[in-house]
């Protein structure tokens, strides 16, 4: 009779099973142990055999586990990579914590490079590269007129010419037009507000290929059989109506006329519509070539298969035909088509690409810096690597750990950089709109592709420069590294580091030179005399709405006279006047004119002048100096002889060597009557500080009430903003149906006109400063490392009688030699690259010596500071200590 066979305990077998290698190896080991168990059972009995098996199984299991763990990085077998990675990450974090200075500098460097790039590229992408939001926007063309006297300058279009283009140019499938922006008064159930509107033909949005976001755009017969329709801009819908969709369908009144809101546009940039609150449908009444001047803007959609060049050629021919048909009106005028993306972003493209290039260079510096830091660190750790190799760590183990460390730096740098980029974009979007007048800014958002690109670039830099030297050390074997340790860094990595620092310095000099050029140019621009005193002046637009103003010019004249009289009598207001278009505030009105005592010039040869309709004490309010004669006043009433004041430039160009006073001009703007010059005032920069000065003619509003609005100009005592409430109160007293729009200080008007060069220069200065800081860190790191490597040599020098001054000079010489080479390379680069910013400069040349000297001097100064600390440390090396270190 045989007993049931005794088996080893199941739990011990299970533990053993889980620990043994798979396959026959493991099962044969287990079978060996079970065979011995059977022998033990026969020899020593059941209890002893079971105890023996449990103990041996546990020992064997433990042995296999330890064996696997100690071998893991080499074979990576058995699902261990996650543990390995986790351990490497923990090790990397611990090592970075032990070198906080290195870690912080490296992470900040990476973060700055990434943050600046993400910010600027996101702006570039949103403004220059993102789709416009119109259907087939690459088929759209903005079409302007161009005067032979101002080649390349886009001029608004005569409606009659537009009608002819539309009828004759077969290259275009469709063509529509929209007016310049005008002040309009919107009355929504008695709630009156001044807003900015454009009159658009019913098919305008269809030609643009822009659908409404809410509701619809104009019906085909809007303003003809359907009544006046209104489309709101997205921004105005949000600010005025709180994004209320029920506004669609509401009846409103625009400038006193009934209209219906039919839709809201999506939040995209609308061609010709920057700052426009609403579009008002206007009938397709196209006028003729003679009676209305030039005031509309035209967009055309190319017919299928027609190229822009072919369309431009056809327009050329159409323009030639119109010159022949209407020589009086069209002589000297041609047609200027512009692709619509150029139209929208043309002005900002150059400064944006300049900034993009700058941050790209900044990223290169950041990469060079990270490379330098990691090279230094890797060299420092050559000994550590050699020791670990000799203790049995494989190249793969070390590589995995160094990789983990580089990746940790990249990850933290990327996180911080993303945060910086996010903040940067917020700040720019908040700061730029008013100042920069950047189109499409509403579309700017953090760009994931550029984020990924910059992170990948810095990570690659980290891996390349962190890993290679360390691996080199690991490969070269312990003996050579351990013995070479005392000799310091290898000549080759030393040269690589020198080259990195030189290129950092060179690129910094280029950026500094660029910033200095833009700064000098800005300085020159701001030093330009505007011709008026903006400080202490409050301005605000008053638009006269309602039938009685529309019907009767005398009522308009009387209202402005009364308004200005009451305002100038108000406490805190020294002078009050009005003008239709403020200086430096966008478009103005202009007209051709000629001397009546000379034969009329040929058509197209007449000079043109700004036409200013001024009321009250405009000249006093802006302090425009009177040079000769008198200013316009109550003597120049509606029925009095026509009088004008002209600008100094008009007097000098049209009456060279003569006295302009008393002479007469024909001004096309205002009929056939002769206008007699009664005074000459100094020039005012109308178009902006950088623009050339054109002649100007001032008419009194009483004799030329061309527009139904005036910009009221108030010279105040004390804080200009304080006069705003008096302004509004007086206006309400006169007519409760009127509102003051765009009330602001004149200084902000001037500031906005110089915003682009100012912001470009500021941003460039910020980037140049960052670049300089990073190069200083790079140079500092290199010198500090060199000093620590040469400590013993320095100790010997001091021991044999070198003075601290000699040691300091030695270190500074090493740093400044690299810096000088970098500056020389950078200056050459700056001179070569300066053409890029030539068009952005005002009043200075691209080789402006002051800028180049300033950039070099600033950089060398920073370099000296970066040299100072290592030099000071070198001078304090105690010879005994340094020598004992061996």
């Amino acid at each position, binding site marked *: 009779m045989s007993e049931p066979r005794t088996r080893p305990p199941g739990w011990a077998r299970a533990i053993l099973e889980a620990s043994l290698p798979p396959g*026959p*190896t493991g099962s*044969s080991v287990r*079978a060996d142990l079970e*065979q011995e168990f059977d022998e033990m059972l026969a020899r020593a009995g059941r209890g002893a055999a079971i105890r023996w098996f449990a103990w041996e199984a546990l*020992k064997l299991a433990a*042995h*296999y586990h330890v*064996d696997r763990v100690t071998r893991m990085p080499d074979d990576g077998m058995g699902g261990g990579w996650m543990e390995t990675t986790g351990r490497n990450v923990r090790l990397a974090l611990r090592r970075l914590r032990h070198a906080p200075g290195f870690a912080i500098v490296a992470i900040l460097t990476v973060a700055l490079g990434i943050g600046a790039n993400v910010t600027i590229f996101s702006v570039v992408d949103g403004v220059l590269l993102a789709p416009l939001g119109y259907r087939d926007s690459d088929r759209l063309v903005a079409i302007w007129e161009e005067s032979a006297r101002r080649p390349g300058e886009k001029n608004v279009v005569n409606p009659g010419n537009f009608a002819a283009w539309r009828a004759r140019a077969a290259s275009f499938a469709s063509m529509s037009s929209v007016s310049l922006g005008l002040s309009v008064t919107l009355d929504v159930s008695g709630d009156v507000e001044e807003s900015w509107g454009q009159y658009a033909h019913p098919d305008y949005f269809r030609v643009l290929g822009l659908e409404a976001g809410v509701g619809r755009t104009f019906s085909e017969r809007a303003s003809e059989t359907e009544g006046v329709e209104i489309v709101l801009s997205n921004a105005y819908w949000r600010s005025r109506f709180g994004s209320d969709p029920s506004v669609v369908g509401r009846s409103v009144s625009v400038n006193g006329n009934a209209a219906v809101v039919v839709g809201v546009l999506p939040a995209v940039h609308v061609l010709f519509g920057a700052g426009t609150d609403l579009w008002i449908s206007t009938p397709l009444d196209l006028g003729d070539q003679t009676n209305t001047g030039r005031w509309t803007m035209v967009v055309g959609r190319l017919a299928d298969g027609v190229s822009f060049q072919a369309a431009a050629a056809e327009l050329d021919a159409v323009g030639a035909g119109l010159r022949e048909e209407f020589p009086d009106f069209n002589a000297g005028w041609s047609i200027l088509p512009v692709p619509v993306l150029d139209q929208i972003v043309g002005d900002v493209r150059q400064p944006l690409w300049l900034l993009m290039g700058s941050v790209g260079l900044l990223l290169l510096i950041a990469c060079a810096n990270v490379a330098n830091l990691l090279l230094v660190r890797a060299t420092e750790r050559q000994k550590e690597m050699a020791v670990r190799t000799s203790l049995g760590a494989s190249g793969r183990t070390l590589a995995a750990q160094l990789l983990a460390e580089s990746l940790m730096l990249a990850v933290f740098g990327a996180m911080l950089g993303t945060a910086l980029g996010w903040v940067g974009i917020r700040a720019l979007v908040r700061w730029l709109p008013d100042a920069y007048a950047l189109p499409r800014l509403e579309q700017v958002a953090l760009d994931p592709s550029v984020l990924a690109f910059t992170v990948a670039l810095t990570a690659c830099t980290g891996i390349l420069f962190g890993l290679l030297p360390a691996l080199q050390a690991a490969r070269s074997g312990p003996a050579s590294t351990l013995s070479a340790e005392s000799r310091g860094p290898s000549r080759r990595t030393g040269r690589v580091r020198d080259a990195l620092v030189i290129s950092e310095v060179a690129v910094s000099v280029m950026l500094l030179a660029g910033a200095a050029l833009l700064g000098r140019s800005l300085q020159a621009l701001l030093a330009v005399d505007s011709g008026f005193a903006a400080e202490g002046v409050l301005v605000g637009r008053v638009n006269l709405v309602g039938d009685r103003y529309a019907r009767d010019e005398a009522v308009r004249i009387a209202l402005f006279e009364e308004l200005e009289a009451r305002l100038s009598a108000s406490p805190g207001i020294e002078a009050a006047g009005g003008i239709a278009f403020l200086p430096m505030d966008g478009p103005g009105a202009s007209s051709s004119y000629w001397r009546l005592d000379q034969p009329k010039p040929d058509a197209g040869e007449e000079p043109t002048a700004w036409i200013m309709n001024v009321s009250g004490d405009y000249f006093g309010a802006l302090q425009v100096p009177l040079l000769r004669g008198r200013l316009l006043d109550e003597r120049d009433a509606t029925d009095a002889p026509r009088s004008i004041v002209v600008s100094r430039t008009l007097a000098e160009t049209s009456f060279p060597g003569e006295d302009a006073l008393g002479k007469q001009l024909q001004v096309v703007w205002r009929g056939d009557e002769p206008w007699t010059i009664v005074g000459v005032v100094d020039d005012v920069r109308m178009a902006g500080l950088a623009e050339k000065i054109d002649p100007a003619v001032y008419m009194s509003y009483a004799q030329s009430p061309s527009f139904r609005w005036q910009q009221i100009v108030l010279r105040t005592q004390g804080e200009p903003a304080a006069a705003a409430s008096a302004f509004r109160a007086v206006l309400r007293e006169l007519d409760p149906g009127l509102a003051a729009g765009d009330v602001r200080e004149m200084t902000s008007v001037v500031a906005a006109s110089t915003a682009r060069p100012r912001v470009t220069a500021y941003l460039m200065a910020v980037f140049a400063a960052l670049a300089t800081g990073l190069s200083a860190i790079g140079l500092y790191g290199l010198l500090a490392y060199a000093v620590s490597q040469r400590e013993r040599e320095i100790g010997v020098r001091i021991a044999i009688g070198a003075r601290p001054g000699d040691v300091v000079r030695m270190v500074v010489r090493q740093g400044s030699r690299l810096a000088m080479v970098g500056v020389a390379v950078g200056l050459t680069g700056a001179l070569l690259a300066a053409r890029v910013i030539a068009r952005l400069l005002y009043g200075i040349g691209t080789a402006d010596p002051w800028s180049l000297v300033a950039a070099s001097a600033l950089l060398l100064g920073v370099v000296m500071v970066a040299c100072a600390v290592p030099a000071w440390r070198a001078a304090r090396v105690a010879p005994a200590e340094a020598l004992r270190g061996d």
Partner: protein
Amino acid sequence: MTRRSFLGEFEQMVMLAILQQGDRAFALEVRREIERSADRSVSRGAFYTTLERLERKGMVTWAEEVPRDEARSGPLRRFAVTDSGRRALRDSWNAVRTLARGLDDVLEEAQ
């Protein structure tokens, strides 16, 4: 010149025991041979992991055999020393012999 590593003492013992056992070089027998010849107990863990290390270095190989004993619960592995294993063993052995030349008396004294 390829890098050669010296064999550890225990590795040499394992390979010599395999050679001694000839065609009976099953793991259990090999371990018992070492215990008998060296007069010491051998940890199973050290023994098996040494076998696997030698296998990775290409110095021993094994073939799987179906056991004749029906009570046995799993396969048997019969081990053999490869040519390169034999060479490594010979190099180590020569080195030891060279170093020990003329030291017989000295070594005997210890007894």
